[in-house]
């Protein structure tokens, strides 16, 4: 990221940030800011909204109007902002716990309404800020402080959920796939209606440490080798072949033009 983009969009007087060393959230923020800058949006017309958690601290470091709200409720606040003033560009940063556990109902209804905003979920598969408890996205068998014998519950597939609930654009990438992630966010920002981008990110402190992925590079490497292109996953499903264990789909799940709300006509 060039210095110009950094200086333009970040609040330098807020540094240093609170993210742990090796956290993937910074990568997602950089990709997001790069995408927003590529849109040539006016800083004064752009609003970042978030809930509670590590990822939700992101708007505090960005030099726009920003709303750091209550746990799980970011999409409800963002809906108010966008519906009251459709001229504002609204981007939501959220985490897997924030969005899918406490905020699950707001998530499906924001997708159903197809409100014209971009939702970027930094999915680190854990509750990072509270110290590593299991989330609805902690993979089966993985260790957290509340799943000491291995997570027993199946995970939420947030991208498939967003597709089913009605979002106009849905994509998933990881903090390894920075070019693809940035491109997906640009597509999201340019698509009318709700765009949901799930970014899988490493959390060496709360997740990796307990799951034999202690080094930052270990977890990024795990994401690289376990991410499978959506087209390949779909083909294997059609052929009735099993998806290898712990693999997940990346790519563009949907881009469509259903009627959207919160668009200035």
């Amino acid at each position, binding site marked *: 990221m060039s210095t110009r983009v950094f200086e333009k969009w970040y609040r330098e007087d807020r540094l240093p940030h609170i993210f742990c060393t090796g956290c993937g959230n910074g990568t997602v923020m950089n990709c997001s800011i790069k995408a927003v800058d590529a849109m040539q949006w006016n800083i004064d017309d752009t609003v970042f909204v978030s809930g509670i958690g590590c990822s939700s601290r992101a*708007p505090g470091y960005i030099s726009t109007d920003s709303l750091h709200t209550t746990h799980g409720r970011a999409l409800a606040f963002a809906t*108010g*902002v966008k519906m009251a003033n459709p001229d504002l560009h609204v981007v939501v940063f959220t985490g897997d716990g924030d969005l899918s556990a406490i905020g699950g109902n707001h998530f499906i209804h924001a997708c159903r309404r197809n409100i014209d905003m971009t939702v970027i979920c930094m999915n680190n598969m854990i509750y990072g800020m509270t110290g590593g408890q299991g989330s609805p996205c902690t993979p089966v068998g993985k260790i957290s402080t509340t799943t000491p014998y291995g997570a027993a519950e199946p995970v939420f597939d947030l991208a498939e959920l967003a597709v089913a609930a009605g979002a106009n654009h849905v994509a998933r990438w990881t903090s390894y796939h920075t070019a693809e992630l940035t491109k997906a966010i640009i597509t999201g920002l340019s698509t009318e209606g709700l765009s949901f981008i799930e970014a899988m990110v490493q959390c060496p402190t709360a997740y990796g440490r307990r799951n034999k992925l202690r080094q930052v590079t270990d977890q990024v490497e795990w994401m690289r080798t376990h991410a499978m292109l959506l087209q390949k996953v779909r083909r294997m499903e059609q052929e009735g072949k099993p998806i290898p264990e712990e693999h997940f789909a990346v790519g563009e799940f949907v881009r469509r033009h259903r009627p959207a709300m919160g668009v200035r006509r």
Partner: protein
Amino acid sequence: MSKIEFMQGNTACCEGALAAGCSFFGGYPITPSTEIAELMALRLPKAGGTFIQMEDEIAGIGSVIGASWTGARSMTATSGPGFSLMMENIGYAVMTETPCVIVNIQRGGPSTGQPTMSAQGDMMQCRFGSHGDMATIAVVPSTVQEMYELTAKAFNLADRFRVPTFVMSDETIGHMRERVIIPDSVDIVPRKPLLEGELPFQAGEDGVPGFAKFGSGHRVHVTGLTHDERGYPDTTNPETHEKLVLRLYNKVESKRHEIADYDAVNTDAETVFVTYGPCARTVRQVLHDHPDEEIGHLNLRIVWPFPEDTLKLFPNAKTFIVPELNLGQMAREVARHMSGQKVLSMPKIGGLIHTPAELYAAVEAER
């Protein structure tokens, strides 16, 4: 030219809000407040505003807070169970100094209770329901006319003090129909804007910072975390927290006698009724039936912040009688400010209001 109409309390609430310039309603239907959402759904789009029915009350108040930051006068309406759900975000509105109006058409509780019957069981919740120390403002209408006027006034108080303001009505006033005089216009006191060079959470002598609406170029960061005058989180500094929370508290509480709105009748009386909401109507009937100036009446149209000086308007009072549709919530607040006088709580729950005979019997017993 003002006009005269015959309307329901909940309708008057909408009309008062629209007259005050409300342009955003986000909420979730719940009896007995539903007519407010229904009428706002009908009226707001035609007035250039936005109505959105959210997935629950938590989302309703969340959307209202988001809309308020775009500069819109925004409101929601609910009843007991929905009000309980809103509590966390109400605390957020206090901490972030977000002006908004929350109408609670109270019903019997706890829990689902009596959806179609009247109660005043949420009076302490609107003051102390959210976690942490805070001050809020609550208006309480006793007539449909007052529902119109006080709803409009609630927007002005919310904007002036940048605090969530409650219209703490109830099923009785919400669903009754009365004659209402609709004025040509109502007073509108807008938010004080943030001036160039001011910090977004830096307050002057009145304790209220200028408002930097989204899109106006101030690039403000709004957070429910303890924050400094720039709006930046500063959660572990005891001084920052104490300074912020004391300011949020004092900006309202230090003005409570200025905010106060009440009627004081027969101020020489020895026996004085203290009411808010529908119980005032029964007392008015008692005074009408016994016009002897021996019975005093203090009716509070604003209960929070509690205007304790209004009790001193009755220097000869020996007994204050507090009829209310709960087990004595505000009677305790009245008693807190007594020095020797008796406070007689007259609680009533179940959904019906007191009869004039019940209240007059209490006066007789005190003679």
